[in-house]
């Protein structure tokens, strides 16, 4: 069963007029957010987006933007304590990706 997180919160934006139909977003998304319809990508499961940024990075025509980052409470606290962006780069701490 697929898990759904919070609704209407992600920063994913898609500009279909720029889509060149390469399908890359439908390949790289780990949560099936995009599908192809009439040779163009469409967003079908927006709330499944986890803002990993794979689609935007692999969109050669720049039709997708997303503020990507780690969806991790410990990473966010780390970022606040260090005054940086949320980071899971907790070198030295054992329990971290």
């Amino acid at each position: 069963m697929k898990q759904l997180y919070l609704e209407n919160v992600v920063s994913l934006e898609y500009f279909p007029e720029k889509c060149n139909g390469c399908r890359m977003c439908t390949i790289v998304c780990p949560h099936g957010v995009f599908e192809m319809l009439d040779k163009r990508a469409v967003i079908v499961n927006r709330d499944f987006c986890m803002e990993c940024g794979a689609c935007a990075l692999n969109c050669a025509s720049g039709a997708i933007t997303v503020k990507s980052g780690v969806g991790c409470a410990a990473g966010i606290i780390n970022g606040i304590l260090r005054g940086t962006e949320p980071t899971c780069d907790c070198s030295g701490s054992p329990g971290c990706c």
Partner: protein
Amino acid sequence: MNFAGQVSTPPGEVNLVTSGLRIADYLGALKVRWAFGRNNYRVAPGLYGHGSPGRNSPVMVTANYKLSFDHLRKNLSGIDCWILVLDTKGINVWCAAGKGTFGTNELVSKISETGLSDIVAHRYLLVPQLGATGVAAHEVKKQSGFRVIFGPVRASDIPEFINNQYKATTAMRTVRFNLKDRMILIPAEIMEHFSYLVFVMAAIFLLGGLNRHGYSLDAALDGGLAASFKIAIAYLTGCVITPVVFPLLPVRHFFLKGAITGFLIAVAVFILYPSKNIFETIAWFLLVPAVSSFISMNFTGTSTFTSLSGVLKEMKTAIPLQISIASAGLLLWIIARFIS
């Protein structure tokens, strides 16, 4: 790492690895699953071979976290291929891709460092799909001439992916988070804040000695010890019980999931160890859910589907609540020391 031999290529000898894991590999995996030496469990970056690789064999790209490398090779039984290991500082593919170390630049430089274009006649690479967060396929093509084919999410689907002429099914493309996926991560969850837990348990134990006559070690050994174990129970509720019953909890916010499991465990603790002191009783109905809620919220980073925007939104509500409820609980518990 033990090698099965070497294969000669124009740029030089390439070490061959096997798909069979040894006992040492399984023990190493067990160790890092419990977060021991997890940041230093690495293989040397570079090119390896598997089976009898030749000029037309595919090239699999992976990270230099040994757990990732072993996971890939154990699924390669009967497949002749090259394995290109990127230097991700010992971090797994998905997390390293998020940081950019499993990324376009590192891939392009490893292609050139290893002389890959003199080793294989074709011009494509199989990159794990979760590497796409760091690898831009069109950029790799532009900079190296190699076409990136994103493979399945899970290495266990590689044989089927190859048999399907490099086509992945929707299931192969989708990240899961089922009971087995969650269970395997629980040991690392337990270890994550273990040093803080020990510190808090010690502090609670010492505070337990307070009473209206001043301080007594007997009180610490009695009430303080029991209290520090209740804190440990709350901690374990957040990092073991919440992950196990995860989809059964009918809310989406992780902090609420943890508050629910925490409340249920607080009820169980009260039934097993009832207290006549009303302050003490209320204190644990506040403290256990607050601690469990906070620890469960950290499971967002372990999960495979939370967004940064979503976690930020949840934390804005959760952190003030957790701090006030835990403080109220602690205050009531200290008051209870003086009236018992």
